[in-house]
């Protein structure tokens, strides 16, 4: 099976989003009810004695949510993990209900990925289940300030790990990869996430073997997922601008569509599209490179494929060219690569 065929099979299972016809939300789109996230953050801030300005309007944008989160990073060394425990299933209406109605780990994670627009609007999780592993990769929904990225990634990983542990009745043996250098002190990560921590990876991901991922629990089935699939809560199905761009690029990996084509699909001029990406702290080539780097790292690492096979799958005619690109994306030679 070709790489694209494999990806196409994985996309509807949580790797990407099905095309719902809903426009993506942007960093400044006011699309999140303040009562959802802000109420939870306010409770935590109060508990930690941190002042939090309650948003005035009923709907807030991802940027405003980030602004609310920023002061909480200073609310103790464990703030990302303690707050993470509160984040999911959360009180986000149907999407939270759907999470609780899932009866197995794979179902619950698929539900999370499908409704990320409501459950985790800042970071979009992508689920990848192959013969050996279950991998949950965290990607930007609509960009994050570099200084807060580590905190927000920890927050989301802790939220999912804690939710899974709660539903499974025991802690799952997740292995964690982080796209940043190791912190001075790993104690917080080790206690709250587990000791299988790998820093300096190219992706933020959580992994389980297939055998470890086969976890089921008693859940009361319900109609929340069905209702959501019928657009009962459109925001749940919406993707962030960068996440939706990632979905699009994954569908055409070897020959990525040009900036002009993507702009035309969104019904805007190339210049407007460029400006829009710039507002999210990125540009077209950076996003293409990121998606390809993620796929290359996956194929070289967990899949254990050879350099030449990966080069071919990504549409490179010769290995030397791929090697140069990979070096540019990751700062490492593909041969030296292992996901950890």
């Amino acid at each position, binding site marked *: 099976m070709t790489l694209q065929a494999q990806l196409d099979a994985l996309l509807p299972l949580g790797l990407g989003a099905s095309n719902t016809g809903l426009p993506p939300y942007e960093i400044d789109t006011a699309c999140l009810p303040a009562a959802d996230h802000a109420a939870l953050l306010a409770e935590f801030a109060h508990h930690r004695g941190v002042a939090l300005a309650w948003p005035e309007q009923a709907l807030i944008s991802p940027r405003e949510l980030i602004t609310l989160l920023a002061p909480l990073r200073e609310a*103790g*060394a*464990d703030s990302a*993990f303690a707050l993470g425990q509160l984040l999911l299933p959360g009180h986000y209406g149907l999407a939270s209900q759907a999470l609780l109605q899932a009866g197995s780990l794979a179902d619950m994670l698929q539900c999370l990925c499908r409704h990320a627009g409501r459950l985790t609007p800042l970071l979009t999780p992508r689920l990848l289940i192959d013969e050996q592993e279950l991998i949950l990769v965290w990607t930007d929904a609509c960009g994050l300030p570099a200084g807060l990225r580590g905190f927000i990634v920890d927050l989301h990983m802790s939220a999912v790990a804690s939710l899974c*542990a709660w539903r499974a009745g025991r802690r799952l043996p997740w292995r964690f990869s982080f796209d940043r250098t190791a912190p*001075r002190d790993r104690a*917080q990560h080790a*206690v*709250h996430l587990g*000791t299988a921590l790998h820093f300096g990876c190219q992706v933020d991901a959580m992994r389980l073997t297939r055998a470890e991922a086969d976890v089921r629990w008693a859940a009361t089935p319900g109609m929340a997922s069905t209702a959501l699939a019928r657009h009962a809560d459109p925001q749940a199905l919406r993707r962030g601008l960068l996440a939706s761009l990632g979905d699009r690029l994954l569908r055409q990996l070897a020959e990525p569509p040009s900036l002009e084509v993507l702009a035309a699909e969104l019904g805007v001029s190339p210049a407007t599209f460029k400006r829009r990406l710039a507002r999210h702290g990125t540009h077209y080539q950076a996003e293409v490179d990121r998606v390809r780097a993620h796929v290359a790292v996956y194929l070289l690492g967990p899949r254990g494929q050879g350099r030449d096979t990966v080069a071919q799958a990504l549409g490179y005619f010769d290995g030397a060219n791929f090697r140069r690109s990979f070096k540019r994306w990751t700062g490492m030679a593909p041969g030296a690569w292992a996901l950890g």
Partner: protein
Amino acid sequence: MTRLILPASLANRPLNLLVRDFFYPALALVLSALTLAFATLGEFKALAEWHWTDVLAEGGMALMVGVWLVYVRGSRPAGRVTTWLTLGLAAMLVGEWVDALDEVWRLPKAMVWDNALEALTPLGMLALTVGLHFWRQEQRVLSRQLAQRERFTRDHRAVDRVTQLADAGYMAEQIQLERGLGRAGCVLMLGFDGFDRLTREQGLQAADRALEAASLTLLLNLRPQDLLCRYAGDRFVVLLPDCNAAEGERLADELKAALAQLNFNGRDGQRLRLPVRAALRATAGTQSPEQLLLDLLQAL
């Protein structure tokens, strides 16, 4: 013209509280009055006569003493120690100020009060020394309260908000120190089973109270020379200096039993008990203290 009326509530206030509240205004008044006295009674020196190094050195001294005064008053509760420290620093400040002023204005030879005021500097130093002596006594009492929470060194940045214990980094330093002393010792890690569930179902407040109760229980059950730190989350770590493996096992069992006896208060009045886990290692070894602690965590 507005008249200054003292509010009725001030009239009955104890003297030491009045002094506390009106300290800065009074000090500012004294310093301005002195400046005014120099400006009216003295003769302004021509710039050529100024000794710039003296002006800067004496003015700078006065400024620094002022800064120390603000810090000391800002960081200490009122009491005997603070009174002596404040009096000493204030006297030094006035003395230094006069010293700096007579670099700028020349007073008639007949006036000697400025020399008398300059003598405040050594008197202030004396008062400051008395204050430091009392401070040392106070610190001994406080250190007894902090026994089992810190050893040899202090790092306030490492202290946890909930349990008032130091963190994993502090413990790693102490293990390194213990290795340097060449004594045989043990490190013990303790934690609860299902604490995350307690947090999720009972809330953050209940979890914090449980951690506080656990830390106090451990402190009561430790030997005086032991050190307790909060590793992270519900994981506590104890340094047992001068302790062989058999003794370590015994202490570990005792502490485990003490924690297992704890009843936590749930949200709706229910009482909860959680199973306790423990892991023990010798402090000696070639691996880094951080890795030793991670191994302990994994063994838990």
